[in-house]
C-alpha cells in the first residue's frame, strides 16, 4: 500500500474514500488489495498489484496509464473475463454489492450484459463482422431471457436510438463493417447497454477515432453517467479523461501510483509519473516545448564520413505543390475526386502539418508528394527540381530515382514495413546499401550511429522488430528513413499508434532531429493536438480540398472557417492546461 496515495484532501467524495467505509448499500465497486497474476510456462507474472478502487452510481472512474500498466486486466477482473491462467486474489472484491471472488461462472453470466456492460476498444473487431449489429444487440437480450421477437426488435432499435444512431431500423440490418467508425462505436456501446446495466466499463472507447467523432462518443458516455450509471473507463490520454472522469486512478507497473478527484489529480499531480503523463499531452502547446523528460539526442557524430551528393536546393522551398488534382473511378462509371486543387509550400527546415479526418484526401496528397501517385493535374517540385507533374511537366520515374533519397517516408505502423525476418541492424544496413551510402565495411558502424541518433542502444542491433516495443519500432523506422540522408521526411500518422508518453518521446526526437539536421517535415495526422505541437504551418483538409491554410499560430488561435473551429472545439484539452496558458499570457 506504500504506493497508494489517496489524493482526497478535496474532501467529502464518496468514491475516493478508500474502501472499507463504503458500506453504503449502493456502492457499485468496492475493491481492496486486488492482485492478479498469470501462470505462464516461465513462472508467475504479477500484472495487477494491490489495487484498491471504489465507485458510486452516477460517477466515472478513469484508469490511466500506458500499455502494460495493468489497466485492462483490472477492468476485465470486474466482469470476470480474465484469461483462464489468471489468478485473482483480493482483500475485498465487491462488484454491485456481491463478493466477486465467490461468483460462479453461471452467476457471472447473469451479471454480464445485464448489470455490467463492457465496451471494448475497436468496434470493427469487437463486433462479429459476419453478423448485423441488430443480431449482436439481440443476442444480449436473448441471453438474458427477454421473450418475444417483436419486443426484442423494438428494444434493439431503441438501444441504437439511445446510442445516437439515426435510422436504427436500417442500421440494425447492417454489419459493423458497413458502418462508419463513429456509428460502429455507437453500435458497440448499444450492444453493451441495451439492458441498462448499472455499471459500464469501457476500454479505450475513443482511441483511434477522429477528433469530432471522439467528442461525440465522450458525450454519449457522459450521458450514461448522467442517467445514474457508474462508469469505469480506461484511457492513456489524460485530455480525454479530463472531460469525463470524476475520479482518476493512475496506474504504472500494475500499481495505482496516484488516485483522487479528477480535477485535483490533473491540476495538482503528486506523483512524477502523473506529471510526466500530463506533460506528454501535445495539444495546446506550441512548437519548441519538450514533452518528455529524456535528454535531447545529439547527431553531431554523423556529420563526418562520405555522404551523399544531392542537387537539393539550398535556397528553394523543400516542396512546392501546385493545384494537385486526383480522381479515381467510382461506382457506375463515375469518378470520385479525392484531391481537388490542393496547393502548399513546405519551407526548408520547417514542418507543414496536414490535418483532416479519414477520407479528407491527406494520404493521397502525401502519395503525390512522395512521387508514388501520378496526379491528374498540377505539379510538384522537390528542393527546386521538378518532381511530379502532367503533360509537358511529366517526370519519369527514372528521372525521379536519383532524387528519391531526398524524401523519405515514416508510416503509422512500422512493423508492417519491416521484413519480420530481418534484424534491426539489417533493416538499416539494407537501406544504406540501397542508397549506396558508405562502404560494405563501415555500414554496420553507420547503422549503430543511426540507432544512437534516434536514441536506441547498440544492443538492439541484432533484435527482430517483432520483439521491440511500439516506440522502439517507430525509432527504427525513423533511423531507416534517415539512413539515406534525406532532406525531407514525410511523416504519415507517425505517432497515432503510440501511447501518449511514448508519443511524447518520439515527437521530441523528431524535433531534435529537425533542429540539428535541418530536415523539413510534411507531417500528416488526424490529431489536432499533435499537429499544433509540431507544425510551423498547417493545412486543414476536408473532402479533398484545402479548407484553410496558414501558420500554426493563426490556425489554432484565430481559425477563419467553421470547419476548423468545429475541429478545434472537438479537441479534448486539460482544464489545467487552459489555466496554465491563461496565467502565462
Amino acid at each position, binding site marked *: 500500500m506504500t504506493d497508494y496515495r489517496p489524493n482526497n484532501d478535496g474532501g467529502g467524495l464518496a468514491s475516493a474514500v478508500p474502501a472499507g467505509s463504503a458500506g453504503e448499500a449502493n456502492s457499485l465497486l468496492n475493491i481492496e488489495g486486488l492482485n492478479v497474476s498469470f501462470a505462464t510456462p516461465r513462472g508467475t507474472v504479477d500484472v495487477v498489484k494491490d489495487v484498491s478502487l471504489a465507485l458510486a452510481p452516477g460517477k466515472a472512474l478513469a484508469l490511466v496509464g500506458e500499455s502494460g500498466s495493468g489497466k485492462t486486466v483490472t477492468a476485465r477482473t470486474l466482469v470476470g473475463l480474465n484469461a*483462464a491462467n489468471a489468478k485473482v486474489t483480493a482483500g475485498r472484491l465487491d462488484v454491485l454489492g456481491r463478493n466477486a471472488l465467490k461468483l460462479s461462472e453461471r452467476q457471472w453470466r447473469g451479471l454480464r450484459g445485464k448489470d455490467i456492460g463492457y465496451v*471494448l476498444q475497436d468496434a470493427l473487431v469487437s463486433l*462479429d463482422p459476419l453478423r448485423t449489429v441488430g443480431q449482436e444487440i439481440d443476442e444480449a437480450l436473448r441471453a438474458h431471457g427477454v421473450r418475444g421477437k417483436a419486443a426484442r426488435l423494438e428494444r434493439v432499435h431503441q438501444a441504437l436510438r439511445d446510442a445516437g444512431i439515426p435510422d436504427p431500423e436500417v442500421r440494425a440490418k*447492417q454489419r459493423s463493417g458497413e458502418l462508419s467508425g463513429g456509428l460502429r462505436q455507437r453500435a*458497440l456501446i448499444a450492444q453493451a447497454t441495451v439492458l441498462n446495466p448499472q455499471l459500464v466499463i469501457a476500454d479505450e472507447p475513443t482511441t483511434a477515432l477522429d477528433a469530432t467523432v471522439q467528442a461525440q462518443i465522450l458525450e454519449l458516455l457522459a450521458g450514461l453517467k448522467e442517467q445514474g450509471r457508474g462508469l469505469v473507463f480506461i484511457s492513456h490520454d489524460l485530455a480525454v479523461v479530463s472531460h469525463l472522469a470524476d475520479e482518476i486512478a493512475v496506474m504504472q507497473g500494475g500499481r495505482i501510483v496516484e488516485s483522487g478527484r479528477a480535477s485535483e489529480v490533473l491540476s495538482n499531480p503528486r506523483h512524477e509519473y502523473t506529471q510526466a503523463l500530463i506533460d506528454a499531452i501535445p495539444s495546446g502547446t506550441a512548437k519548441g516545448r519538450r514533452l518528455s523528460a529524456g535528454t535531447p539526442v545529439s547527431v553531431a557524430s554523423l556529420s563526418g564520413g562520405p555522404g551523399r551528393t544531392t542537387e537539393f536546393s539550398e535556397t528553394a522551398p523543400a516542396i512546392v505543390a501546385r493545384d494537385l488534382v486526383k480522381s479515381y473511378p467510382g461506382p457506375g462509371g463515375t469518378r470520385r475526386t479525392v484531391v481537388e486543387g490542393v496547393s502548399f509550400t513546405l519551407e526548408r527546415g520547417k514542418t507543414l502539418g496536414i490535418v483532416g479526418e479519414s*477520407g479528407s484526401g491527406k494520404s493521397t496528397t502525401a502519395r503525390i508528394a512522395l512521387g508514388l501517385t501520378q496526379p491528374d493535374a498540377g505539379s510538384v517540385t522537390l528542393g527546386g527540381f521538378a518532381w511530379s507533374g502532367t503533360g509537358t511537366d511529366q517526370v519519369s520515374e527514372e528521372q525521379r530515382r536519383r532524387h528519391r533519397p531526398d524524401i523519405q517516408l515514416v508510416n503509422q505502423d512500422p512493423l508492417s514495413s519491416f521484413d519480420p525476418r530481418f534484424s534491426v541492424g539489417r533493416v538499416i544496413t539494407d537501406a544504406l546499401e540501397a542508397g549506396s551510402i558508405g562502404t560494405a565495411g563501415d555500414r554496420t558502424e553507420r547503422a549503430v550511429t543511426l540507432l544512437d541518433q534516434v536514441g536506441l542502444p547498440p544492443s538492439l542491433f541484432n533484435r527482430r522488430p517483432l520483439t521491440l516495443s511500439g516506440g522502439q519500432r517507430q525509432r527504427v523506422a525513423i533511423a531507416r528513413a534517415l539512413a539515406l540522408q534525406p532532406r525531407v521526411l514525410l511523416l504519415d500518422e507517425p505517432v497515432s499508434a503510440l501511447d501518449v508518453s511514448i508519443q511524447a518521446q518520439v515527437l521530441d526526437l523528431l524535433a531534435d532531429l529537425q533542429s540539428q539536421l535541418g530536415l523539413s517535415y510534411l507531417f500528416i495526422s488526424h490529431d489536432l493536438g499533435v499537429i499544433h505541437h509540431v507544425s510551423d504551418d498547417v493545412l486543414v483538409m476536408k473532402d479533398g480540398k484545402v479548407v484553410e491554410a496558414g501558420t500554426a499560430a493563426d490556425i489554432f488561435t484565430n481559425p477563419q472557417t467553421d470547419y476548423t473551429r468545429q475541429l478545434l472545439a472537438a479537441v479534448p484539452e486539460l482544464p489545467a492546461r487552459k489555466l496554465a496558458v491563461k496565467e502565462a499570457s
Partner: protein
Amino acid sequence: MSTATQARTSHTEIPRTTATAGSTGQVILRRAAGSLFVLWAAVTLTFFVLRLVPGDPVTTILGGHSAAPSAETVAAVEAQYGLDQPVLIQYVNYLAGLATGNFGTSYVFKVPVLDILGPQILPTFQLAGLALVFAWAIALAFTLLTVGRGRVLDGVGRGIEVFFAALPPFWVGIMLAVVFAVILGWFPVAGDDGFKSLVLPALALGIPLAGFIAQVTRSSFEEALAQPFVLSARARGLSDLAVRVGHALRHAILPGLTLSAWAVGSLVSSAVVAEIIFARPGLGRSLVDAIINRDLPITLAVVFIIATVYILVNLVVDVLYRVIDPRTNDKGAGA
C-alpha cells in the same frame, strides 16, 4: 453496400479495380458458363488421351486377344461403332451424342453406357455424401470439444486429427469391417442393403477426411476465439458454448468449406476403395473395371460425371460461402 464500399475506398484511397463479383445470381450465371467450358475441356482431354492408350478397341469389343476375329467381323464392328472414321469425326460425333444425352455404347457390355452406369450413380453419391457428413461431424465435434480447452485436451485433439489424416482409407475400411462387422456384427460385412450397409464404407472414407478438415477448422477456430468480438459476446452474458457455436464456429467453417469442395470431387473417385472392400456397386468400381477392360465409352462417361459433380459442388460451396460470410458480396461491388 454502397456505404461500405465508399467508407472502405475513401479510407484506403486506393482504387479498386477487381471487376469480379456482383449479385449471387450473376455469379451463378457466370459460373455456369465457365462450367460448360470446363466440362468440354475435361471430356476432350480424356477422349484424346484414351486414344493414345495402346490397344485396339475392336479387340476389346470382340472379347479380347483370344477371340481372333476374321477381317470381315472387324470391319463390321468398326462400322457399327464408327471406329472406321477419322478420330476428329469420332470426336465430333461423340460431342454431338453428349449434347443429346447419349454416352455411347459400352465396348464390353454392348449396351448403352447409361444403362450400366445409371444404377451405379446413386450408391456412389450416397456413399460420398454420407462420408462428407461423417467427416464434418467428426471435425466439428473435435473442434468444439477440444480447441481452447486447456493444453491437454488441445494436444489430444490435435494428435488424433493428425493420426486420422494420415490413415489410408483402405486400412480404415478393413479395420472397421473386422471390428464392427466380423467381430461385433453390428453392421453387414458387405453388400448394398440400405443405410446399415452404408455406414462402414462411409466411415472408411470420412475418417481420414475428418482429419484434414479438422486441422483447418481448428486453426481458424483458434483464431476466431482470440478475436475481440468473442470477448464482447462473452461480456453480453453468453455461455462459452453459445460463443463457440454462435460466433467462432461460423468463422471457423469457412476454410473447411473450401476444402470440402475439393474433397467431394475426390471422394467420388476415391470411393472405389470402399466399394471394393465392402463389395458395393458404384461409379468408382465401374471406372476401374472400365479402365482395365479398355471400355472407353464408360471411362469417358465416368470422367464426365465426376467433372460435373466437381463443378456443381464448387458452385454450391461458392453460394454457401456467401451465405456464411456476407462480406464476400461486398468485395468489389463498387468496382
